[in-house]
């Protein structure tokens, strides 16, 4: 009987403990995911811009070729 009540007493705290660990996990993993996603979108953006500028330059030269 004593053991059961002891267990319940700790069980009364387990809500706090699990919430605390859960919150830590959510925040730290969430930050990691947000940072990774930001990295991915930004590198995609840079890649798009990079793909954009040489093509434009090539177009320009094409135009020049066409006009000359």
């Amino acid at each position, binding site marked *: 009987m004593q053991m059961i009540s002891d267990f319940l007493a700790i069980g009364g705290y387990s809500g706090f403990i699990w919430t605390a*660990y859960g919150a830590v996990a959510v925040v730290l993993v969430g*930050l990691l995911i947000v940072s990774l996603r930001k990295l991915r979108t930004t590198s995609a*953006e840079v890649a798009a*811009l990079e793909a954009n500028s040489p093509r434009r330059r090539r177009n320009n030269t094409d135009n020049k070729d066409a006009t000359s």
Partner: protein
Amino acid sequence: MIQQYANPARFNRLAATLMPWFAWPAGVLIAVGLYFALFNSPPDYQQGDTVRIMYVHVPSAWMALFVYTSMAISSAVGLIWKHPLAHLSAQAAAPIGACFTFVCLLTGSLWGKPMWGTWWVWDARLTSVLILFFLYLGFMALQNAFDDPARGERSAAILAIIGFINVPIIKFSVDWWNTLHQPASVVKISGPAIHSSMLIPLFVMGVGFTLYFCALLLLRMKTLMLARRARGMSMAQLHQQASE
């Protein structure tokens, strides 16, 4: 201006070499720390099982201070020596520090409720950590408040240095004032006041969190650098379009 942030290639190489040395040990140490903290450490003779919250609360408090200190140092380096990476590192560190501070406050609150019977008390330690949280938010807000990003980062850097006054206040608040928050029991001149069965998981978690911070810092710095590059490139293309 963009050219001044030269050598992203060198930074990327360095980051790529360092990253696995931070990321993997961080994951392993946090996993080991969690195992010890949740299953293989003794309950406290006074606080029972709630002491398990300590293994995330105390390391995040350390990180909150450590990240702020690193941020203030990089800000100072950025302002004094104008090192191109310094502001970037402060800027990348701020959200991580804010998250650690938030976690510290939240877990502290969840520890305080069963132990002190209240979610929050207005004592010196808690209040000064709350102010630290606001300083992080202020830093980030100031950083983004200007049309010229260079202006924002310099302004925020000055704020970070001013706010550093708060760090020793937090550290010593439990010694200077009679607070409900317990005084430091790990870092003491007379040696730590807690048993090694608790100290070891605490340190494992602390080192794990530090490595997590380092890995995330590199990742975020890389992102910021790419974002800067993207901004520069789109500006250049706009100019080109305008001149055509």
